[in-house]
């Protein structure tokens, strides 16, 4: 006999399944009214909206239910217009025509249930197949696993924004038809126009092999996710110049020059990084934000001093700030360049700081020169001794001392 807890669990599972089924049944009944209503509206207003969106770009918003209804309606062997519609003003052609031409589309779902019903918002499949000219796609509070037919979107999209809808990047970027055909990632079509991707506020843990499909992406924002290790797939983003990984759980940076290519701007704030040595060969870097990490020592930041293009560095909210003369010590890492370009924590070095740096550098140089002279003198003495004791017959050691 099941215990009360087991019973309770089963009830919950049954409840979930019933809710899913419930939503499916509910929507199947409403498909016609939803699509007819949309078609009528888009027939009247679609052209005007599209025209005005050309002068002032804006997103047209659909709910997952609407997109699902359109997708399902097209599968039904039924005429394009509802039956009593004499002038065919609610012909589904109006909706498809609109999808065909719309350039910016927003899909906004909702977590949980629809209203007071037991219908789950994000359990409905939808297809973007008829979106043939989409430049921008914004998905929020939905489930990207439910979005299909991205083949045509993949050809045209320039900007992609996904919030609160994604666990794995490939769930959206891979086309299910390609997967069914058993294609390798290398054989799949790439997102050939996609340049800007914002996947912030999701539950992404890794950069999977779908990165191979994004050769043109320049700006990638994956902040507020659950990334601990960036792995090696980001290297496939051969056009990437800006990467935002803030508010993740990154602890270690290892040889990122091999993993990132020519990134110029790197935002790593609010992670748990202790050491920046792994950035030491990322020579393209111009902007580095490591605010709110766990960087404690000067040794941990030493490597970035040799980055030839680095101009802006943000180290605020790290334990290293507690070091005495923190600013001048960090600035000193940049050597001669400290006076030209470097801006630390949003402030250019003050003349006083530069003086300190210069004095320290001069002192160090003098010290080094002195040590060098001392070293040479010792060498000569040792050689002389060897010569005198007959161990060496080098002709160069005839100097005097």
């Amino acid at each position: 006999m099941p215990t009360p807890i087991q019973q309770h669990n089963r009830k919950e599972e049954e409840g979930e399944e019933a809710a899913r089924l419930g939503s499916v049944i509910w929507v199947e009944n409403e498909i016609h009214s939803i699509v007819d209503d949309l078609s009528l509206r888009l027939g009247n207003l679609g052209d005007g909206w599209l025209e005005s969106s050309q002068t002032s770009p804006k997103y047209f918003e659909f709910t997952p239910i609407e997109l699902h209804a359109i997708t399902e309606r097209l599968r039904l062997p039924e005429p394009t217009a509802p039956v009593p519609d004499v002038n065919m003003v609610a012909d589904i052609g109006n909706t498809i025509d609109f999808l065909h031409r719309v350039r910016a589309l927003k899909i906004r779902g909702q977590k949980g249930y629809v209203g007071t019903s037991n219908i789950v918002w994000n359990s409905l499949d939808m297809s973007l197949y008829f979106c043939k000219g989409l430049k921008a796609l914004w998905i929020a509070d939905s489930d990207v696993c439910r979005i299909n037919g991205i083949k045509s979107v993949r050809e045209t999209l320039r900007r992609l924004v996904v919030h609160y809808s994604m666990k794995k990047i490939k769930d959206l970027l891979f086309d299910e038809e390609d997967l069914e055909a058993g294609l390798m990632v290398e054989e799949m079509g790439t997102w050939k126009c996609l340049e800007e991707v914002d996947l912030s506020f999701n539950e992404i843990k890794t950069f999977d092999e779908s990165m191979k499909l994004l050769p043109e992406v320049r700006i990638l924002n994956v902040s507020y996710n659950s990334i601990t290790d960036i792995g090696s797939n980001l290297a496939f983003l051969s056009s990437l110049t800006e990467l935002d990984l803030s508010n993740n759980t990154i602890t270690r940076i290892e040889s990122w020059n091999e993993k990132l290519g020519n990134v110029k701007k790197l935002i790593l704030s609010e992670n748990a990084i202790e050491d920046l040595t792994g950035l030491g060969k990322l020579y393209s870097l111009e902007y580095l934000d490591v605010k709110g990490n766990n960087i404690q020592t000067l040794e941990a930041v030493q490597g970035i001093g040799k980055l030839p293009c680095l101009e802006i560095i943000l180290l605020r909210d790290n334990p290293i700030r507690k070091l005495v003369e923190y600013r001048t010590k960090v600035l000193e890492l940049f050597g001669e360049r400290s006076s030209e370009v470097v801006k630390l924590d949003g402030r250019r070095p003050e003349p006083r700081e530069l003086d300190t740096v210069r004095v320290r550098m001069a002192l160090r140089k003098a010290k080094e020169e002195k040590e060098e002279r001392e070293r040479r003198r010792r060498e000569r003495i040792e050689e002389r001794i060897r010569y005198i004791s007959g161990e060496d017959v080098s002709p160069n050691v005839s100097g005097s001392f």
Partner: protein
Amino acid sequence: MTAAPYNYSYIFKYIIIGDMGVGKSCLLHQFTEKKFMADCPHTIGVEFGTRIIEVSGQKIKLQIWDTAGQERFRAVTRSYYRGAAGALMVYDMTRRSTYNHLSSWLADAKSLTNPNTAIFLIGNKADLEDQRDVPYEEAKAFAEENGLTFLECSAKTGSNVEDAFLETAKQIYQNIQDGSLDLNAADTGVQPKQNLPRAAENNGKKDCNC
């Protein structure tokens, strides 16, 4: 899509039908994009395209449904006939079997569309003259017998493609003008557009400026 393409007086619904592989999708692509699509995949279910044309000084938008030729999609394909103002029936002039099936396509078209639907017969792949399998005269005679307009086209070179779509539209427009096509009857496949006032744009509910 450039300056003010949105002022048109009618929407005409077209369908393209015919056997698999005769080049229906390529014809549509050539007409809407003015390009030949070399490796066109088989159509699953249905494809769609639009273009605005001008007939006797009137702008008309064509909404074209390109159906799948495969037998397994027949049920879905049939559902698109209703309310079509124009039907382009396509065969491949280098493959006789596709021509032989025309009577079956025509039977569907006649029984599922309304009597005013303009049916246009297209012999595609006219660029492959040396592989011709259906003589021009034979197809011409078939068309006349069944009251169809007929042209041989090439989706590859684009020859006559424009004409096929435009001639069909002219016929439909003519039918509207002379009253034989009653816009108040059901399923004519013609959506009259009363040029809407601009105020209609402000359907605030769906706008999103982010």
